[in-house]
């Protein structure tokens, strides 16, 4: 089963929840994998001692135009929906703007003169690791200055396989990278904070998941810092509340140094174990199944 840990608002504690959930499950010997899908800002590896098993480059195919073979028909540029082919026939100018190309392949199909070949361009990497306890940890990482992490996220989830429990640490927001991650999940946990910003973004996430016919459950992190808005909303919408985690400077401190609180604070270790059971049972009853 795949569990996505997501949130609309950034910095609510997705990585905190995902890494600690993975930690307690691996401590008790469950078959578990952690996959960091926040390819724009991947941080899960900071919390574990790991060895790298493999690094795979994720590429897409961008066109290369041979001007000598080009008959200046303009079909490639017409077929490109991303304005990635700059074409001025009178001036005999035709250039590929690689940063705009999505690698769909339409231009090379459109070309009737065999003037277009393709070359791979690296968008990012998928790194497959093992923790010191030999559990798989997979990281999606977007290359700096590349636009879209979607292909890398897809590749990382594929790499994670279907064995046992796979925890997907999702990117923030509700657009393409988030959708790509939760789409593959059997169960979605939204981590939020009890503030007006937290509530506004939680709403947006819940509505997005509704469109995808997924019913999330919620964890309120730093549950004592704000107001009742989130709790009231969950009650009204009948969204299950899995856990509340109080603000604790010791948690913030451990997180800041890349340490896991479930290794240090027994109460939090049991909280996360209960959480894991609730999620796995919740899935078992089918209430949040796809």
């Amino acid at each position, binding site marked *: 089963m795949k569990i996505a840990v997501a949130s609309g608002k950034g910095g*609510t504690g997705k990585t905190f929840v995902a890494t600690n959930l993975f930690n307690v499950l691996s401590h008790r010997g469950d078959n578990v994998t952690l996959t960091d899908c926040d390819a*724009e800002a991947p941080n899960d590896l900071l919390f574990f001692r790991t060895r790298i098993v493999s690094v795979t480059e994720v590429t897409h195919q961008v066109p290369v135009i041979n001007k000598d073979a080009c008959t200046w028909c303009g079909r490639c540029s017409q077929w490109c929906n991303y304005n990635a082919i700059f074409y001025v026939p009178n001036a005999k100018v035709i250039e590929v703007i690689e940063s705009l190309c999505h690698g*769909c392949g339409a231009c090379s199909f459109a070309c009737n003169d065999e003037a277009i070949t393709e070359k791979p361009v690296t968008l990012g990497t998928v790194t497959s690791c093992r923790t010191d306890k030999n559990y798989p940890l997979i990281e999606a990482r977007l290359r*700096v200055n590349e636009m879209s992490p979607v292909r890398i996220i897809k590749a990382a989830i594929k790499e994670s396989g279907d064995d046992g429990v796979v925890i997907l640490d999702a990117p923030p927001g509700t657009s393409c990278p988030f959708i790509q991650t939760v*789409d593959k999940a059997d169960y979605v946990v939204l981590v939020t904070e009890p503030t007006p910003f937290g509530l*506004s973004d939680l709403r947006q996430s819940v509505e997005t998941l509704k469109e995808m016919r997924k019913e999330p459950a919620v964890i309120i992190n730093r549950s004592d*810092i704000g107001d009742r808005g989130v709790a009231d909303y969950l009650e009204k919408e009948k969204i299950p509340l899995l856990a509340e985690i109080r603000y604790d400077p010791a948690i913030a401190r451990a997180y*800041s140094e890349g340490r896991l609180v479930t290794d240090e604070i027994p109460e939090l270790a049991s909280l996360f174990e209960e959480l894991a059971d609730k999620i796995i049972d919740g899935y078992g009853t089918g209430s949040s199944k796809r």
Partner: protein
Amino acid sequence: MELAVVSGKGGTGKSSVTAAFATAGERIVVADCDVDAANLYLLFNPEHDTEQVYIGGYTAVVDHALCTVCGICESYCRFDAITEVDGKIMISETSCDGCFFCSRICPMDAITMVRSDRSRMYSGSFRNGKMVYGRLAPGEENSGKLVSLVREEAKRVATAQGMSTILLDGPPGIGCPVISTVTGVDRIIIVTEPTMSGLEDMKRVHEVARKFTGDVGIIINKYDLNEAMADRIEGWCVAQGSALLGRLPYDRRVTEAMISGKSVTEMFPEAEISIILNEIWNKMTTNGKE
């Protein structure tokens, strides 16, 4: 002058810092570019002058009455969006990139491209100037384009109102909406936090930022959660030739102000964090005018 506030890591306090700057002094145009988790409107309660429909990206739709299930579309789609299920061609909305390739090569003309029109862009007034923000409809893609539109509108408003400063509240991460936010701005402010994640994510967004301008400044929020880490971040900034604009202490009153719909500088002007924020803003804007 156009200034963008970004962070790499989510939840470091971008919007709270932006809100403080937006209410610090001169009347300004503020634009919320975090279109899939827009929050500033909660503090500024803007009165809308205009609401514009934002037409989002395309999605392919199959007409099963015309489709002969030849499978050509499936074999050419590079986004793994098309599959044959029980003798029917299905297109995954979440995977479709809107490239038009399938609709162009379908021999039966059974595929059409449709666009969503549920996203909105609002432009209006708040207590200290003008505000523009986008709201991406749940599940919508193409947020980078909506960010560009929000920025164009902000520029139009600034010119019409004779306001010289535009402040952009950016999204987390380093991908397409972030690149859309920082392209061509005069100054970029990175808000980070003293954690390993904060540091690693800051490095990545810093690399993106420096590609667009040499004028990149860093604010360390909640520096007192881990002063050693704050020092490490500061050291890194200085080595990169980027200015440390200031360190902000952790203060629960930021959340209290948010709950009351205000910036911390408005509600608690005497707080240390407010004094520092005002100093940073004054210093930045005077420098900008020299």
